[in-house]
């Protein structure tokens, strides 16, 4: 397929995309790296023009030793973990349900997929005000109608509330992926297992789950990468208070709110390393598929 001619043409054609992405990665990344080793508080008068002091790994140490760090890790783990569990468990169940014969399957799919296409700010605000508001929200009314005191969702149960909001948004994604994988399952395998005497729970554990494991892994990895950087939902609901300050939000605050750029940049580097670790696993799977 390839000749010398087309090869050089090809290189030229890939160049813009490669250069753009290279620039997009390297320039800001190196700047972040640069800032992480410096003391840079713009609000206190530091500026690039005046020259910035080198502080070595100081920022890195301070970021980890700050009192906000471990809680942020915890918050991150709880939210990401919670959403993963909810979306995957429900996703598998929903995928299997949607694969069943029924009337109006197309419409049900649309209903289930819809939340993914709602922009995060709308979704978060709607949940916060229309549903979770302790005075006028939907839940509040329902609670009161059975005589219970309404829950102050975002202040008393902030992490579960966020998990609810984010899961609602991502459940469609998990469901779609798992449904696609589910539909590629060879029916004959299940029938053979049935002939071999396996009852439904056994067929589920020994045939369906292993088949889905690849898809579940992919969903897990992709969602983890995107969930690690959740921002809008927290920004719009709690602004990081009530224990919802994830690592991403913490870094954001350090950098744009309290404007300690050096410290925030060090945090950013941590976040990048973390994301890359997950990305490596994901890219391995993608890579294997590309060879196929």
């Amino acid at each position, binding site marked *: 397929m*390839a000749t010398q001619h*087309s*090869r050089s*043409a*090809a290189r030229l*054609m890939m160049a813009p*995309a*490669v250069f753009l*992405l290279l620039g997009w*990665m390297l320039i*800001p990344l190196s*700047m*972040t790296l640069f*800032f992480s080793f410096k003391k840079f508080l713009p609000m206190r008068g530091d500026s690039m023009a005046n020259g910035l002091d080198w502080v070595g790994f100081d920022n890195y140490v301070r970021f980890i030793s700050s009192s906000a760090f471990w809680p942020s890790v915890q918050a991150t783990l709880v939210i990401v973990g919670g959403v993963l569990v909810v979306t995957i468990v429900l996703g598998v169940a929903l995928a299997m*349900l949607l694969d069943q*014969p*029924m009337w109006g399957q197309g419409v*049900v799919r649309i*209903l289930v*997929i*819809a*939340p*993914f*296409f*709602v*922009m*995060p*700010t*709308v979704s978060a*605000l*709607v949940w*916060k*005000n*229309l549903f979770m508001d302790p005075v006028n929200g939907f839940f509040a*009314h329902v609670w*009161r109608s059975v005589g219970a005191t309404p829950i102050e969702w975002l202040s008393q149960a902030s992490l579960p509330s966020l998990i609810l909001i984010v899961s609602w948004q991502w*459940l469609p*994604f998990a469901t*779609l*992926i798992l449904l*696609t*994988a589910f539909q590629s399952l060879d029916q004959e395998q299940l029938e053979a297992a049935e002939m071999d005497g396996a009852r439904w729970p056994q067929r589920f554990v020994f045939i369906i789950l292993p088949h889905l494991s690849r898809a579940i892994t992919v969903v897990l990895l992709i969602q983890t990468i995107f969930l690690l*950087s959740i*921002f*809008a939902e927290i920004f719009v*609901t709690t602004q990081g208070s009530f224990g919802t300050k994830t690592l991403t939000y913490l*870094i*954001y605050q350090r*950098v*744009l709110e309290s404007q300690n750029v050096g410290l925030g*940049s060090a945090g*950013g580097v941590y976040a*990048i390393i*973390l*994301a*890359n670790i997950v990305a490596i696993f994901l890219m391995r799977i*993608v890579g294997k*598929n*590309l*060879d196929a």
Partner: protein
Amino acid sequence: MARAVSTRRKSLNTLIAWSIGLLIFFPILWIIIMSFKSEGDAIKAPLEVLRSAWTFENYGVVQDRSNYSRHFFNSVYIAFGSTFLGLLVAVPAAWAMAFVPSKNTKNILLWMLSTKMLPAVGVLYPIYLLFIQLGLLDSRIGLTIVLMLINLPIIVWMLYTYFREIPGEILEAARMDGATLREEILYVLTPMAIPGMASTVLLNVILAWNEAFWTLNLTAAKAAPLTAFIASYSSPEGLFYAKLSAASVMAIAPILIMGWFSQKQLVRGLTFGAVK
């Protein structure tokens, strides 16, 4: 499934599925309903809300105040602009990788995908600083460029998979028929790739429209798209549920419609082929 399914089983499935579907869809339904109620009614108990009068007033109010149409236009500009800009860069690249693969092609593709995994917060400040220096803060152009860059990997990836599905022999035939590279792409490749390109545009417009990190942090009054505009409803004064609902409906309606058509593309574009 070759086996006949009993009507009873089918009805049960239908009942359960529709219930769950409506449950999941309910918040969206609720927003739509709320948008047609007055503010006074919007804060009442759900059943009373349903019984109260319908009105279009919210849609009018939202449009009059707060320059809603400008933000809507910003969203359109940025979503479509970044996608088409991305297409411009991605089509040649995807062509090259799909039809003239070298031993590095796979790695380059994987690397491109990995740039999408970069946590935005890690490069927030540098971009912010660069934007200030280049005068791009709160500008549509600036945001368009950023969104183009973050979606470029997905655009390249999707085009790559669609191009690979085109039989290479047809392009070789064009070459033998005397077509130059430009002619080959223009007269043969592009017409055959139009469905794939349409799908790619669809998904990426959706992703760009809904993007809520850079749009929140790099814009203010002038260039803010709908994501940022809606976020400003988070600390308003007075009653606002109905107006919020109306604003939300207008913000999400286009994408909901586009989304209904793009389910397959979603799987293809966001799982990077790891799930077939």
